[in-house]
Each structure stands twice: as C-alpha cells, then as structure tokens.
C-alpha cells in the first residue's frame, strides 16, 4: 500500500506540481483579477450608497443584468456536480480526470450566482427579513432554499472525494501541513475508510442529482409563476434545466482545455474526453433547440397579442441581435462544429464551448428583458441600457470565478489522483468484468487488445 502510493505519486507528479511551484504568470494574472474585483466592489459600494438608481434599470424594466447573471451563473453551476454525479452513477470510466474540475466549477459559480439576488436587492440591509417574515409561497423563497441545499450538497460532494488526495499532500509534508492534516480527517486509506468513502460518495451523488434539477426548475418558476407574457409557460422548468446543463458542459470544457494547456495535463485529459464531452454538448445543443423551438412555436401559433408583441420584439426589436446571436451561438455554430469530424478538434470544441457559454448568457438576457420591456399595459416600450456599475459587477463575477479556480489549484490537485490510480488498478479489471457480465461470447484476447488499445 505505502510503496504503491509513492510509486504512483511519482507517476502523477505533474498533478502535484502546481501546488508546489508557481510561475510569474500566475502572480500577474492573480494581480489583474484582484484589480478587477476591487473595482467591482467599489462599484457595488456606490450602489449601496446611492441606491439602484446607479444601474440602468427603470420602469418597466425593473430587472436587468443582476437577474440575468444570476440565472446564467446558476446555470453554469450545473456543469459540475450534476455531470460528475451522472458520470459516476453511469460508471463512465473516462470520468475520472474530469469530475473534480466539474465539482470545483459548481462550488465557485454557485457562490457567485447565489450572491446576485442579494446584489439586486434595493435593501440588502433587510436581507434578514427573509428569515424573520419569509413567505414560503414566494418562488424567491423556493430559490433561497434549493440553492442553499445545492450549495451545501455540492461543496460536501467536492470535499469528500478530495480527502485521500489531501492525505497524500499531508504525507508529502511541506507547506501548510496543519491545514492538510486537519482536512485529511485522519485518512489512512484503510479498507474500512475506503468503504465509508465510497459509500458517502454514492449517497451524495444520488442525492445531488434531484437537488440540482430542482434548483434550475425553481429558478425558472420565478418567471413562469408570474402572468407576464413570454414567461408564463409550463415548459420553462425543463427548458431551464436543459439550458443549464448545456452551458455547464460548455464551461467545463473551457476549463479543461485551459488547465490542460497551462498545467500540461495532456496525458490525463485526452482527445477522447473532449470527444465524449463534445458529443454530449452536441446532444444538449439539439435538445436546447428542440425546447426553444417548441416554446416559440406555441407562442407564434397561438399568437396571443401580448405574446406576439414580445416575440416580434425579440425577432426584430432592439434585442433582435441578442436573439439571433443566441440562436447562432447555441445551435448553428456548435452543431456545425461538433457534427463534423474535421472541426471536432480540441480548438474546434473550445470555440463551440465559448459560443455556447455566450449564447446561453444571451438566452438569459432574452428571457428577462424583453418581457419586461413590453408590459401588457399600453405603455411605450421600455428601454434598458446596463450601466457601468452593472458591467463592472458582471466582470467582477467572472474574475472571482477564474481567481477561485486558480486559488483552488494552488492548494489541491485539479485531478483526482487517487481515482486515477484506482482506475489504473481496478478500473480495467472492473470494466473487463462488467463487459463480460453482459457481452455474450466475449473472449479474453479481444478484450485485452481493446483495453491495450485504450491506454
């Protein structure tokens, strides 16, 4: 056991490197991010001081960037835990190097997204009223609950599988030993502990999936529970969830590609991973289109005047660019890239993913603003031009995300080392057995060859 682990650690040295050595580039990036964050916080301060007047919101467009970004970030957060849980559950072997990154994304982005409704409050000082005199009938309350639940679940779900790795770092000694000792929770890698660990992980991953789905469903309820044309739609729940997973996968891909490059993880994150995830992205893209299509078709077909007003506004109004941009980014481009071998390269996938992330942000924008700008009452169409403050806080959000990731990478391995090992040790065997368990007439050599091919 002991020697085994050492040998392994040699082999996976590259995964430890970021924790022990830091390039200048790292500091520079962190510095820049810090600046952005400070600026953003100053902007938020002015909002606290003067009121939401400093934003571009008005009557009737009473919600803007903050709510858009809230929905967007929470959507992204579905990358992680949900995906990793699904992959774990479906025993997809190739998941091993991916899950951790996915879970980190969730933890960080969820925190950022969860802050947005508070940023959006006119009286953040009264936030406690939600507990003092909260009304569970209000969809906003449903959100508060499900998001907190999701956040706790997914942080735990991030932490538990990290314990063995933390223990390794502890054993290597060096900086912050106390921290790792504390977090390792006396992990020795005994069979007993392993059993408990796997147990915990299994329970969590089963739990986390419904929570994750509930989260985005409930967020969609914020809108669909009102009578506003363009919002008052039953399809919104699943529609939002699909969109969330969609943007989540895209975000995950971007992160993977980025760190693969910076931390030279080429032989952990291989073509195959991107191809698989890419395919998943393609499927989601098609599903997203299917939902969008049915959503708008019902609208156009029924052509209820108020619905029509908003749909036309989206198609042709000042937001038409956002709308058609969304269609291009979420459907046209990714489908083209992902369905042709020729484009389905890592750079190709990167482009597709970036497009999708942008596209999904545009979609959130398209959901929130146009409906508000065209109230049922016969008022002049509202305008919304986000202010400096809102842009700054958006930028700030992104900065926090990147920074969070970099800091995490500074203290913990971005790829679950022990799971990789486990994969090496047991995975192959396991898969072999599994396949044998269901493939009639399978013969060793074939399998061996297969497995040989695979690594």
């Amino acid at each position, binding site marked *: 056991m002991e020697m085994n682990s050492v040998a392994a650690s040699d082999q996976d040295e590259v995964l430890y490197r970021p924790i022990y050595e830091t390039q200048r580039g790292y500091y520079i990036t962190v510095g820049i991010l810090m600046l952005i964050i400070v600026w953003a916080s*100053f*902007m938020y301060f*002015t909002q606290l*001081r*003067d009121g939401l*007047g*400093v934003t571009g919101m008005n009557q009737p467009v009473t919600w803007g960037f903050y709510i858009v970004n809230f929905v967007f970030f929470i959507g992204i957060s579905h990358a992680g835990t949900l995906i990793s849980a699904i992959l774990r559950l479906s025993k997809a072997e190739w998941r091993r190097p991916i899950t951790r990154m996915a879970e980190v994304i969730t933890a960080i982005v969820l925190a950022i997204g969860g802050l947005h409704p508070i940023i959006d409050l006119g009286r953040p000082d009264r936030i406690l009223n939600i507990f003092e005199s909260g009304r569970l009938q209000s969809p906003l309350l449903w959100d508060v609950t499900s998001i907190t639940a999701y956040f706790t679940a997914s942080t735990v779900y991030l932490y538990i599988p990290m314990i063995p790795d933390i223990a390794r770092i502890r054993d290597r000694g060096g900086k912050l030993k106390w921290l790792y000792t504390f977090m390792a929770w006396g992990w020795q890698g005994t069979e007993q502990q392993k059993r408990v660990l796997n147990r915990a992980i299994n329970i969590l991953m089963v739990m986390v999936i419904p929570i994750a789905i509930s989260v985005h469903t409930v967020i969609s309820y914020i809108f669909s529970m009102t009578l506003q044309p363009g919002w008052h739609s039953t399809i919104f729940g699943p529609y939002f969830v699909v969109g969330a997973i969609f943007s989540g996968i895209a975000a995950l891909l971007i992160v993977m590609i980025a760190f693969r490059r910076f931390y030279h993880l080429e032989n952990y994150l291989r073509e195959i991973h991107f191809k698989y995830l890419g395919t998943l992205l393609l499927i989601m893209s098609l599903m997203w289109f299917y939902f969008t299509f049915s959503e708008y078709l019902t609208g156009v077909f029924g052509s209820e005047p108020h619905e029509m007003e908003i749909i036309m506004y989206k198609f042709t109004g000042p937001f038409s660019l956002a709308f058609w941009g969304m269609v291009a980014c979420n459907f046209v481009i990714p489908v083209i890239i992902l369905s042709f071998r020729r484009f389905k390269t890592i750079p190709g996938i990167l482009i597709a993913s970036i497009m999708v992330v942008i596209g999904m942000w545009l979609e959130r924008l398209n959901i929130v603003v146009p409906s508000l700008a065209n109230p049922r009452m016969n008022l002049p169409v509202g305008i919304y031009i986000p*202010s400096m*403050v809102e842009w700054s806080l958006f930028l700030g959000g992104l900065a926090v995300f990147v920074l969070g990731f970099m800091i995490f990478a500074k203290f913990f391995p971005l790829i679950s080392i022990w799971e990789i090992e486990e994969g090496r040790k047991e995975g192959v065997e396991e898969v072999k057995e599994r396949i044998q368990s269901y493939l009639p007439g399978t013969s060793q050599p074939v399998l061996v060859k297969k497995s040989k091919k695979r690594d």
Partner: protein
Amino acid sequence: MEIKRRDFIRIFGGASGAVLFGGCGLDEVFKLPDHLVEQAQKGPGVETWLNTTCGMCPGGCGMRVRLVDGIPVYVRGNPLHPVNRGGMCPLGLNALHQLYHPDRLTGPLKRVGKPVVGKWESISWEEATEFIANALKDLRKEGKSHEVAFLGHDERGLMQQHVARFMKAFGSPNYYRFSATQNGDTAHALLHGHPRQPAFDILNTKLVLSFGANFLEGGYSPVYYTKLYSHHRERGTRYIQVEPRLSLTASNADRWISIRPGTYGALALGIAYIMIREELYDADFIRNRTFGFENWTGHAGVKHLGFKNMVLGNYYPDIVSEITGVPSATVLELARELGNTRPALVIGGQATTDSTNGVFSLMAVQSLNALLGNYDKEGGIYFTEDLPLASLAPVQQDALSRKGNDEMPIGLSDENAFPLTSFSVESFVKNVLADRPYPIKVLFLSGGNPLFHSLNRHDFSEALAKIPLVVSFDSTVSETSEYAHFILPNHTFLERWEEVSNVPSVNFAHASIQWPVMTPLYNTRHTADVLTEFAHRLGGSVASAFPFKDYVEEIKHVMKGVYHSGEGAVVSEGIQHLWMEYLKERGWQIGRYASFEEFWNLLLERGGWWNPIRRQNRRQRMFQTSSGKFEFYSQRLKTTFDKLSKTGSKETSYNAELILNKLNISARGDTVFLPHHEPVPYDGDKPLHLITFQVLSNRDGLSSNLPMMQEMFGYSVRRFWESWIEIHPKTASMHGITDGDWVWVESSIGSLKVRAKITQGILPDAVAIPFGLGHWSSGRYAKGYGVSPNSIMRNLHDLLSGKPALEATKVRVSLATK
C-alpha cells in the same frame, strides 16, 4: 444637450442627480422658514380647512386649503364654489409649491450693476419706497408725471381699478395690461360695441363648434369648462373641434377637423355661405338685431355691400376648401349640421386671434353666432352681468395730474399701425426706444413676464435697459424683472387679499374673495398697499385718492355694494347632481344677512358669492355699437379708418389706399369693414407651419418654475421636463425623423433643437411646439429646460390689434445628429 456634471458622475457610478438636483439623500425641494418648521414640530397637529380662491391663473376656482397647525399642507377644490364645484386643474393643485418655492424673494431687492449680470442686494421697504416715491415726486414736480408707465399683467376687478386710480391721480395715461385674457377684445368691440368676453352656455346647447378654442386645456377657466363638458353624454351635446392639431379639447370632441393655420376666418365664412344659401340662419335676429347683413345705403345715398353678398360673392365652398385645406364636402356637412341644430354654439379661442388676420378671423367666427341668432339665448351666448359693486369716490385730479393724463399715451402705435389698440407691446417698445413722443423715466412691472413672451426680445430688453428706473412687483426674479432696479415682491395669492369677480366667459355673475390663509412667510407686501404708500408719500390729491386704511378696507367697501344690492347669495351646500339644472328647477331665493359683517364673514367662510339669475331688462346693453346692433359691417372700424385717412392731406381715397397698404390689408372697399379672410404673409421658402399651444399644467410659462408642473409638462406624451415638437408621420418620414429624435427647427429668424413626437394628431404640413418652457431665468426649476417657440417666431402682429401673431411663422425641420 451638453453632458452635465451629473451625467459624468453617473458614468462613474457616483450619486447621479439622484433625486431633484443634488447628491443622494436629503435634497430640499422647497423652503419652509424655521419658525414654521418649529410650529410643525411642536404643534398638536390640529387640522383646519379654509376657503379662498385659486390665484394660479385667472380661472377663479374656489380653493379649500388644508392647514395643520396653521401650516398649509394641501389644497383641493371648494365643492361649494360655482365656478369649479370642487374640481381643480393640475396647476391649481400646485399652489403650495409656489408658496414654499425656494426661489421666492424674501424681501425687497435693489440691483447693483448691470441688468442680468448684476447683483441683488436686499434693502428695507422704507428705503426702497422712499427712493422710488422721491423719484416720482421729482418727475411730478417737473410736470413729467406722464413719463411713468405701469405695465400690468392680467389683474382684473378691483386691483385693476386700484392701479388705474393710482396712475390717474398721479397723472399718467400709461397704464397697460400686457397679455392675459384680452385676445378677443378687439374683434368683440367691433361686433358688439364692447370688449367683454362672451360666456358660452355650453351646458344647454346641442352642438359646439369650436375654432381652435382649447377650452378644456386653456381658455379662461379650464376647470369650469371641463365640468360643463363632462355632462355631454347625458345632455347629448356634440362637440366639433376645428384645429390643425389634436389638442386635448379636439381629442375629447366627437369630431376633429384639421385646418391650415390662420385660415379659419375663411372656413367660418364658407360655412356662412351655405347657411345663407340654404337659409339656415335665424332670419328675424338678422333682421332686428344686426347691421350690415343685406346691402344698404348709407348717408348721402352711398351704396354699401352687405355681409350676405360679400360672402356669397367670395366664399364658395371650393374656394374655401382651397384656402383652408378642408374638403368642400366637409364644409357643406358642417354648415348643414350647424344650421339644422338648435341651439348650436360657435366658439373662437385665442388661436383664432393668433395670426396677423386674427381680428377679422374672430369676427368671421362670431358672425356665425349672429347667423344662428345665438345672442342672449339659452344654449347660446350671454354677456355676464356686471357685479353690483360699490364704486370708489371719483379721483380728484390736481392740475399736474390733469396735464399728465392729457398727454399722448406711449402705448399707442407709431403713425397708424394697429389702429384699434391703445397698447401693443411692439409699439410700446418702439416708442420707448425712440423717446416717442417722450421718454419713459419710470416703469412699473406687475405680474406677467412680457420679455419671455416677446417676439422681439432684443428690442424689448434694450427698451427695459434704457429706462432709468424700473420697479417690479414679481415674487420671483423672472426674465423681465432681471431688468428691474428694484423688486418689491408681492405676497403669493395664499398670503394676500384680492377681489376676484366675474371670470370672463363664466356664465353667471359671481365674486370670490382671495384672502390670506396664513401670515406672509416673508417680508413681502401687497402691491396695492405699496401703491397706496407711494400715493401717501406723494401727498395732496394723489394721497386723497386712497382714503382707505389698507387694501382690505377697499375690498370691503366695494363688496358692501353687493351686500346692499340684496341680489344673489353666498354659495351654500353643494348639490350632488347637475347643479345648474337644480337652480332652474328650484328658482333662486336671495340670501338675507343680518349685517354686512355677517355677509362678509360668510363670504370668507364659504368662499364665494354668485347670482345665476339674469335681469330681463338688459336688451339695450347687449350691443353697444353705434347702431345698437350686432354689426357685420363695423362702423367703428370705418370711422377709425376715415380718421386715419383724413389726417394730413385732403384726398382721402388716395390716403385710404396708402393706409390699407401700410397695414397690409388686401381687401378693398366695404369688405375691409366686414368679417373676411386676410391672407397671412408667410415667407414662401419654408414648408411647415409652426403652431404653438398651451398645456394645462403650464399656464403661459407661469408655472415653469414649479417642479411638479415641469414634470407634468408633457404628461400626455410622456415627455417630462422637456419640450417636444409634434410632427405628422408623413412629414417625419420625409425627413427621416423617428419618434424621439432630435430635430432642428429653422425659421427665417433662427433655429432651435427639440425632440420629435411623431403623432397622427396633427396637420401634415404643420408642426406644433408647446409653449411655456425655454426660460433663461425665472428660477432653478425653470431655467434651461425645454425651448421657447417664440425665440424663432417672426415679429409679426395682428394688423389691427397689434397682438403678437403667434401662428404666422413657417419653418423647416431636419434631423439633428446629436
């Protein structure tokens, strides 16, 4: 709009002009003197309601003021008051904002340094009045009392008498009232022989045909007319509005007929043509009560053309359609509907008189009422009874004042422009600049903001600057009072005594007292009392013209007349349903009061006195023309012209021609003296008519310094604190203008930039800009907001009355690349 400091800060997320003017947090919008603040904080919160009369405009609505611990906190309409029956307009509701206005002058001011740029120093009443009184004394000693002029605003009733009295006693013929409610006067004087504003019995008529009279939004008493209008459904009254623009009144009318500006004299006559042709007119009224309808023979057997043949000869519907742009079919419909409905009423408004041909146009419009025999008839036109006010003892003039009053008034036009008016701003300005016939040494300015409205700003300000002593009574510094040497601020109407009687165009005799619901906030004084003080300082016969202790006593004195007359009654408990009806059913028994004191107290308590019953023996006073009849052919106009042409050489015919040319009157022969259409001298190269209108929330620019009225300025088009220009979609698309774009509006005088409002509600070859904004002074809330159409208007005037021709300018619009 240049980028303001606030924008800049906003970009950087700082406290943008958060709420009214200033950083975040507590911005003070109005001012409350400390002693009141204490009163408010210490007070037990006792609530009282006092009735007075709204003074925000001459509309004369009864107002009920809510006071808490003696501090006015809210105003509403007085439900007992016969003019408004509890209703109010937005402007009146803002009375308290005028009272607590932060720019109000807290005491007399003296200007040091040049006009506009100079500094204002406060000065004691004693010093100020003494200085001015001495100046007056000296002038008088030199026998130059006539070199004092008093430019008033729209003061009526006793206040008008009071000022006139002062000027007469002092010895100057130069008391003029700029503006206000006198636009129709000339035309009415010619037709009826007296300038009184007719009152329209809208309530009992079946059809109202209005020529641009925006009586729901403007007019003399918008609230009164709104109330009458509101009964149209159960009364089955039909409204037709003739106007180039869909004003508030037009949009409430059953039918809107769009017409080319400055041409509805022609339309009226076109209608007359059909009514005459189809004999739809009231034959015996025409026979018995009018003069000059048929051809007639004057003294020395001169044959004269009658109205009838003049019309039949010149106003064939197709021709009219040519002039007005109204389809001849429509002219026909109008005429038939009008001629076949009884009672039917025709109303002309300011706009009727707002062009160079104003007087003739209004004459034409009014002659339709004659054809309908509307005078003194239910559902027609009345001239409201004068009040039985006690008169003041006649002024005993001394030699000096007699001499002064005999001088030629300076308001008279040079040579023979505007023959029919004793005063036009234009002539006044010209004369002052030319010392013609003598220099003006002292000018009093009361109310009004003539410089802001002037179409000849440059000369006007020169004239003001030229006068050695200018004294204003304004409560806030306005464009005009910037030129004053002294400002002796009047109280606001909630702090002062005023007698308000017979609001023009209101259908029954009434009187209300405006009285102080509180002690004045600041060290201000009633203009009437200041004049009295001058008089007393001057001593002699001038002093003795003002026997009363103060203005209140004077008001009481005249009201005694009402008390003793035994007529009418102090208003009493309102009636829920149609109130005029009610009075008819119930007849009217006259109020009885133990003593004048009781009458007086009741009057103050209830807020008004009225007498809706007309005495029957009024026939002869109806028309005071030399014929004693309604004059289609105005003998007064004829004689005026004869006088003009007599002056100088003998051969009158040649002279007459000369004068007609001078006045740019195109008509010849008898037509000149008949209602007819005079073409307006537009400058040819500009395609669009510029018209203006007055919005309910902003009376003549009077309320531009009230923040809430500024916000309400364009409430109907959702434009706040700013001017807009109404453009027809066709016209707009021709110039690539879309709603909300900035456009340049260019006339031969100048150009201004304003945002477009695209609307179906306007004549395609006209554009409309609301009037009232575009101040360059008049306080923090007025200065720098919006534009004033007057700044690009040609300095044209009505040919006869010299009234500014506000609808006679043409413009070109183009998209401004902001």
